[in-house]
């Protein structure tokens, strides 16, 4: 039965995930950040609550009046804050419940995960207590209903036994000191929630404690708009204990128990709530019992570390626990960021979206580390975003030192970092230029890491591209721009002795230039080939540079390829698709490494062709593979291989 419920739940979540992935993209899918969103909503409730507290007055009449003042006299801020406070609290319950259900249906609550599960249940009840307590403060008719309901509910407990309701039995029974108590509780309980939340997430390595900023911003905006469209108001005037509550607009996120209270008896509701709590708390140890196993060990490359994996633990969790920084994002098999290679052993691949790990990739030895659990000792490899001795990602401000138009549609942009030197990075990595509206544009370092004075970017103009158009029409020397970096797992693997084939499409030459200059600088003597494909001769920029490298380095060869040469080009060299030229020259790729950088279309066309010619999955590195989802969606800004768009 439990299995059936879980399977149905998984089915629903996967369908919803897939739908949301199509709409939001796999990096901004809110369903992957339910815990983080709940955290964010908690902060929203805390921040708005602090504002309300400034104006809130503790007294029988003052409580109602001060809230009314905020709602009506200061509706433009106080009223919005009141509404956001309420709606954020409601949305937090919604996010927490979905978060709980998700972990339940995916069976993420047993074994070593019991602690997070149990602490989460306690957090949930504390949030409920805090929210119910909050509804007492405005001292309107809803507050009257909640206060009396609470007293009647608690009064059936032997320790109270009918005494609590005496405090609310008639007009005059309540005095100002009640609000001192209620306010104290309303500050104390959220503090307890925050402390428990910290404990709840502390034992989960790499837990999301905030959603990505676009998700946080959109969630906040949705609640602010809701606050403006439908402001939260007090109900039915001030509380009047001489009259009964006949109808009330309940907050069904927090107060359904009060409806149950008068449908059943208070004792029955205690049994219901207490029973459900015990059931939830005991869930990690309830049948069906899983037979406990010893767990396994995994040998992790490139760290060359052997780490233990507990029974039922996913590979990503084990690695993060051991402080191995495997890149990850959604943790739910949706984005594919944590994709790695299985070199030895047997795994349960887990549940994931087909778009995150294709059948071909799985057949080729790939797996999603956030989903897979071991069935034997394993040897795995992942591509680190940060190498050992990592280069931290941070934001920089740079000045445009020089603009140099290399060809009709490529601009060389030289950046100087303000007040600092160029950040350390790996040849092949990229930066995100941060646009004023919060959007980002990715460009590879064209300079090698030893170039410590400046950064070179090679930016191709894209029709309708906001930033690239600005670069070509508005940007001037001396302009400032902000960027974050270094980023990306596409970088030169210096170990090994296999010949390297670099495949560049148009401005895909940029990271290849960085890697080649780095290779020449460090004296790498492996045989290196550069296949650079563009459409026609006028698309080659810096054409003399690879020719000079060819003259200076005996281990380097340059093969330019035009896909659509113009008659005036008088081109006698290679033509066609660049990957076809490589396949013609290297029918057997089993003993080569390939670094491909260009459009997603180029990489996606080349990859299966290379595999079909014996290339090992582990010897193919491509920028577009990792960025494919964004590139597919951001086609106008995408570099394209010379050839067909």
């Amino acid at each position, binding site marked *: 039965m439990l299995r059936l419920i879980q399977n149905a739940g998984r089915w629903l979540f996967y369908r919803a995930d897939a739908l*949301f992935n*199509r*709409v*939001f993209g796999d990096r901004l899918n809110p369903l992957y950040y339910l815990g983080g969103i709940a955290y964010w909503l908690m902060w929203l409730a805390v921040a708005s609550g602090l504002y309300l507290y400034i104006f809130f007055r503790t007294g029988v009449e003052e409580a109602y009046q001060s809230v009314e003042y905020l709602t009506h006299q200061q509706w433009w801020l106080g009223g919005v804050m009141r509404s956001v406070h*309420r*709606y954020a609290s*409601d*949305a937090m319950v*919604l996010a927490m419940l979905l978060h709980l259900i998700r972990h339940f249906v995916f069976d993420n609550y047993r074994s070593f995960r019991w602690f997070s599960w149990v602490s989460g249940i306690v957090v949930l009840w504390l949030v409920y207590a805090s929210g119910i307590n909050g509804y007492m403060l405005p001292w309107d008719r809803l507050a009257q*209903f909640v206060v009396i309901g609470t007293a*009647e509910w608690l*009064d059936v407990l032997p320790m109270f*036994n*009918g*005494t609590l*309701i*005496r405090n609310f*039995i*008639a007009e005059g029974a309540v005095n100002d000191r009640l609000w001192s108590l209620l306010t104290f509780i309303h500050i104390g309980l959220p503090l307890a929630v925050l402390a428990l939340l910290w404990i709840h997430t502390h034992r989960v390595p790499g837990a999301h404690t905030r959603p990505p900023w676009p998700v946080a911003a*959109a*969630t906040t*905006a*949705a*609640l602010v*708009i*809701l606050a403006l*469209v*439908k402001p*939260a108001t007090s*109900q039915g005037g001030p509380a009047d*204990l*001489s*009259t*009964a*509550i*006949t*109808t*009330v*607009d*309940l*907050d*069904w*996120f927090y107060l359904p128990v*009060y*409806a149950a209270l*008068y449908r059943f008896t208070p004792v029955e509701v205690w049994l219901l709530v207490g029973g459900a709590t015990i059931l939830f708390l005991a869930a990690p140890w309830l049948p069906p019992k899983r037979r406990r196993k010893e767990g396994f060990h995994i040998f992790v490359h490139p760290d060359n570390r052997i780490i233990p994996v507990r029974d039922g633990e996913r590979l990503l969790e084990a690695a993060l626990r051991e402080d191995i920084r495997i890149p990850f994002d959604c943790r739910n098999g949706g984005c594919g960021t944590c994709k790695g290679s299985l070199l030895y052993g047997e795994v349960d691949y887990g549940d994931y979206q087909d778009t995150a790990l294709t059948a071909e990739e799985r057949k080729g030895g790939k797996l999603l580390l956030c989903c897979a659990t071991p069935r034997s000792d394993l040897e795995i490899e992942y591509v680190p975003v940060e190498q050992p001795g990592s280069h931290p990602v941070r934001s920089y401000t740079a000045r445009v030192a020089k603009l140099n138009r290399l060809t009709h549609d490529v601009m060389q942009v030289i950046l100087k970092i303000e007040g600092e030197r160029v950040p350390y990075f790996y040849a092949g990595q990229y930066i995100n230029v941060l646009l004023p509206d919060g959007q980002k544009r990715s460009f590879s370092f064209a300079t090698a890491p030893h170039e410590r004075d400046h950064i070179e970017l090679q930016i191709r103009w894209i029709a309708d591209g906001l930033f690239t158009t600005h670069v070509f029409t508005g940007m001037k020397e001396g302009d400032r721009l902000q960027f974050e970096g270094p980023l990306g797992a596409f970088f030169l693997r210096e170990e090994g002795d296999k010949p390297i084939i670099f495949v560049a499409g148009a401005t895909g030459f940029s990271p290849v230039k960085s890697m080649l200059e780095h290779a020449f600088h460090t004296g790498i003597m492996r045989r290196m080939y550069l296949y650079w494909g563009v459409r026609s001769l006028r698309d080659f920029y810096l054409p003399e540079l690879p020719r000079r490298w060819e003259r200076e380095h005996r281990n380097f060869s340059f093969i330019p390829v035009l896909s659509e040469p113009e008659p005036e080009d008088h081109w006698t060299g290679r033509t066609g698709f660049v990957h076809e030229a490589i396949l013609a020259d290297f029918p057997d790729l089993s003993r080569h490494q390939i670094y491909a950088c260009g459009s997603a279309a180029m990489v996606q066309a080349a990859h299966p062709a290379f595999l079909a010619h014996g290339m090992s999955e582990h010897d193919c590195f491509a920028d577009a593979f990792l960025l494919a989802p964004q590139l597919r*969606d951001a086609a106008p800004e995408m570099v394209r291989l010379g050839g067909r768009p």
Partner: protein
Amino acid sequence: MSTLARYLIQGMLYAAFAATVGYFSNAPTYRHLGADDALVRLSFSHAAQRVAPCRERTPEELAKLAPNMRAPLDCPRERSPVTVELELDGRLVFRNVVAPAGLRRDLASTVYWRQAVAAGEHRFTARMKDRPEGGFNFVKDVVVELAPGRVLVIDFDGTRGGFLFRM
């Protein structure tokens, strides 16, 4: 799917999220009491008489006690249970025998009972016995006109003559 369409659908999904939160935040309306009903609440906390009367200590007994313990009366701590009955229009609607609170049963007995009744004129008869023997020693009979939505509180205060009917 085009970028514009994606943004539109994203906006719609966030709007649906906000609409869900906004709707269930105060809807659907919950009806707690019928439109023509009033509410009767019987509530009091009363320390009943002791189970046995106090006895005067003899001089010999007093002499045996420590000087600071020489109280002239020897009173048992335990109190009698409180028996309470409420009749509504001649019909018994509530009866309870409530033990005193406390480990030694020496504290007040507390009663709480609530009932929705149709608005209109009603006769209430409240009876209470707070002694170990004998019949009801507090009885009050009143006729009350209850308007819809009003709360009638039936309280008890021994110092003010017994039952109090408050609206």
